[in-house]
């Protein structure tokens, strides 16, 4: 084994000031002794296994990861005793001898495993094992393939890490294609010489393009001078390992600072390349290294022979570059080969303020959306308002041009709208506003009924119609027909009424005129019938009676012809009798002489005989003072009703009932026959259905027909009885009746 020399770990160098070398060695050994004095006693009781770790300056983090990896894979307790080697003096034989003796003395009992970190520790452990801890297996980590693959390591195994020389040289020459010189700065320790050899071997491949200059030795002024003398287009491979414990005027870091200032610098040691101005290099994963080494240590402690476990070569190393150095040497990241990890990259504005930018964009977008939504809402509202305005305009145009008086009220019945036609009709002041309601213009006689109908409608919220007289602007009252319908809000609640009133005065007058005409026609008909009846009775009958008497007298005084005269007289009497009957059919004398009840009874009996049907007549409490026209009306209604009944009812049983009360007489004619559709019959203007009500209305009575197809018909007429002095103006007394 050569002259091992301590090497700083790849991931960190302890930069604490160190004391004198001897003092340091003994302090370390004392620390080990203190640790071991308590350790073996404690672990002996637990059958723990002991591992002596030669750290070689390896960082504590890596050692902890290794320890955790071991403990995770064994079932027994493991004690780790760590010995820091003083790297700068490692090549000194005396140092190594002293260390070996101190370890043997301090560690009376052999450890179960020697764990060596990095190349110098491995060299030391292998060289001194037989004399200090013979037969103890060795496991190593962070040992370069340059050393690990150099020879067989009996009783030893572990993790070998790539040197990174090839990849680093390739990267440097790729990123600096105009390079003419590659300067390798290193020292002359065994370890560094291995690396120099590896680099040299790689550069041989490029010897036609680049010249290699090796600057070897401890950091010094001379070295700086040589650096300064390097030509342009030089790339430096910096492999000079700093040693903190050295007390030099010029240290490795000073050289490194100078080099990086003037030349693009690469290194196979990550911390040199990345943290001190270098561009980068090819580096292994130190955590993976520690974990894998821990695994191997666990296997060995569990009883596997180290020789049976092949050395593990880490394969997940990466090319890493420092972004700051790339910028310093104007190297674009796009020039980097695939898979290169760029470290310390200065964040772009986007990356730096991404959160703020995204928040701002979000706020702006949200604001824009809000504004868009508000604009859309506003546009929609304006459109809706325009539609509403147009709708209102249409309504007003319609409302103001229609001949009807249109009004609206709210749910409490307060007027909220009156159209222009209404104001024009009543002539009121439009400035009076909606307080100018209907009531002031309604005829006082109609006002209570209108008020009641309106109040009920507001209460029940049902449509209603009403006729009333309204004072026009010229002071005349006009008959109005008012129709009101409930208005509903969007949610279905009652909003009030909308109504329209039209002037029906002319229609009403026409209707009244028609009724009057109809009444007059009926009266004229009755009068004419009465006149004809009287003519027949008063004139023809009297003459026939006298003729008959005279024929009788002639018969008595004649000789021989009395038989013939009697025969003629009998003919004469028959004619008189027929004329008399005709007269009574035209006008019932019984009605005049015996009153309505007797007249109806007689008629019913006669009708029964004539038509061979049964008419059941009953009367109750019929007063004796029924006026002639009223009695005549009831008599005619009965005649008409029975004639209709016998014609259409398809039955032979009828009933007539006359009931009196102090103020009115009620006539009911009914059958239980076929019945009919009253509305259809009215539409077809059945004469009976027109004339019967007309007759009854003429005497101020009420008339109704109830009929259901298949269930019969009931006709009811109720007529008031006026005292002689309060007879209706239309009433006409029949003063002369045939006897």
């Amino acid at each position: 084994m050569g002259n091992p020399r301590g090497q700083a770990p790849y991931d960190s160098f302890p930069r604490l000031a160190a004391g004198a070398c001897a003092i340091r060695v003994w302090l370390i050994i004392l620390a080990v002794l203190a640790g071991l004095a308590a350790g073996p006693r404690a672990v002996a009781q637990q059958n723990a296994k002991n591992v002596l770790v030669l750290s070689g300056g390896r960082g504590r983090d890596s050692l902890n990861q290794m320890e955790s990896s071991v403990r995770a894979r064994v079932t027994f307790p493991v004690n780790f005793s760590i010995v820091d080697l003083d790297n700068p003096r490692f090549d000194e034989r005396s140092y190594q001898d002293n260390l070996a003796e101190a370890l043997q003395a301090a560690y009376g009992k052999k450890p179960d495993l020697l764990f060596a970190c990095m190349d110098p520790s491995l060299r030391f452990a292998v060289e001194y094992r037989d004399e200090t801890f013979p037969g103890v297996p060795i496991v190593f980590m962070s040992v370069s393939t340059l050393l690990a693959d150099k020879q067989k390591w009996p009783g030893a195994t572990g993790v070998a890490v790539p040197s990174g020389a090839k990849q680093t040289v390739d990267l440097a020459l790729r990123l600096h294609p105009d390079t003419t010189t590659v300067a390798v700065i290193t020292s002359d320790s065994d370890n560094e010489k291995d690396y120099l050899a590896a680099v040299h071997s790689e550069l041989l491949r490029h010897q036609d393009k680049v010249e290699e200059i090796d600057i070897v030795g401890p950091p010094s002024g001379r070295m700086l001078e040589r650096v300064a003398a390097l030509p342009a287009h030089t790339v430096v491979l910096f492999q000079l390992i700093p040693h903190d414990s050295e007390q030099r005027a010029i240290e490795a870091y000073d050289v490194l600072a100078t080099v990086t200032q003037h030349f693009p610098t690469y290194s196979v040691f990550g911390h040199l390349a990345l943290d001190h101005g270098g561009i980068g290099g090819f580096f292994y994963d130190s955590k993976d290294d520690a974990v894998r080494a821990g695994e191997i240590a666990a296997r060995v402690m569990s009883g596997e022979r180290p020789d049976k476990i092949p050395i593990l070569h880490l394969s997940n190393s990466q090319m890493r570059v420092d972004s700051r150095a790339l910028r310093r040497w104007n190297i674009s990241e796009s020039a980097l080969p695939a898979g290169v990890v760029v470290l310390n990259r200065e964040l772009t504005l986007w990356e730096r303020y991404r959160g703020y930018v995204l928040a701002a964009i979000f706020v702006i977008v949200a604001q824009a959306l809000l504004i868009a939504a508000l604009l859309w809402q506003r546009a929609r509202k304006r459109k809706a308002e325009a539609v509403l305005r147009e709708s209102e305009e249409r309504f007003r145009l319609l409302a103001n041009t229609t001949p009807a008086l249109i009004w609206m009220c709210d749910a409490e019945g307060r007027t909220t709208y009156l159209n222009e036609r209404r104001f024009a009709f009543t002539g009121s002041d439009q400035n009076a506003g909606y307080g100018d309601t209907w009531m002031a213009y309604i005829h006082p006689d109609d006002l209570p009924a209108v008020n009641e109908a309106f109040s009920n409608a507001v209460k029940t919220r049902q449509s209603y119609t009403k006729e009333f007289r309204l004072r026009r602007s010229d002071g005349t009252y006009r008959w109005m027909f008012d129709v009101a319908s409930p208005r509903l809000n969007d949610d279905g609640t009652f909003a009030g009424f909308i109504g329209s009133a039209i002037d029906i005065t002319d229609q009403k007058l026409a209707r009244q005129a028609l009724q009057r005409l109809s009444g007059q026609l009926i009266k004229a008909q009755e009068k004419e019938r009465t006149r004809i009846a009287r003519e027949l009775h008063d004139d023809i009958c009297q003459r026939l009676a006298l003729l008959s008497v005279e024929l009788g007298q002639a018969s008595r005084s004649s000789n021989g012809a009395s038989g013939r005269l009697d025969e003629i007289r009998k003919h004469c009497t028959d004619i008189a009798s027929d004329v008399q009957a005709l007269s009574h059919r035209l006008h019932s004398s019984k009605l005049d002489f015996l009153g309505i009840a007797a007249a109806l009874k007689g008629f019913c009996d006669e009708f029964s005989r004539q038509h061979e049907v049964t008419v059941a007549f009953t009367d109750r409490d019929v007063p004796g003072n029924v006026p002639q026209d009223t009695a005549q009306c009831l008599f005619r209604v009965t005649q008409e009703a029975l004639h209709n009944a016998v014609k259409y009812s398809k039955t032979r049983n009828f009933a007539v009932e006359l009931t009196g009360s102090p103020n009115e007489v009620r006539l009911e004619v009914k059958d239980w026959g076929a019945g009919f559709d009253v509305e259809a019959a009215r539409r077809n203007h059945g004469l009976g259905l027109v004339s019967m009500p007309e007759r009854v209305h003429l005497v101020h009575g009420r008339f109704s027909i109830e009929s259901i197809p298949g269930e019969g018909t009931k006709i009811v007429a109720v007529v008031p009885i006026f005292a002689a002095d309060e007879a209706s103006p239309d009433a006409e007394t029949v003063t002369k009746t045939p006897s």
Partner: protein
Amino acid sequence: MKRTTILVADDHPMICAALRKMLEPAHDLIGCVGDGRALVRSALAMKPDLVLVDLGLPGLNGLEAGRELKKLMPGLKLIFLTMNRDPDIVREAFRIGASGYVLKDLMGEELLTAIHDAVRQPV
């Protein structure tokens, strides 16, 4: 024998004339009126033994006037002379106190008989 005083109520002059011709030989026809109200007034004033009344009189009809007369002059004899053959009216005539009901086309011997019978009837 005292002659019977008769008041006639009929608005047909030819009937009045015929009656006068027919009754005068045996009775005193003291008057002939043309309506019901005149009948009542005349009867009260002239106090006849008997009135011959037509049913169809203007003003008060024969039945109404007869009802009134029987109320005012219960002893007055009342005979209806009419063309009306309605049995209900005949019944009503006798109900109000008529002594006879003679159809005009039979007013010959029948009327005289009726007057004779009426006069002999007790009051």
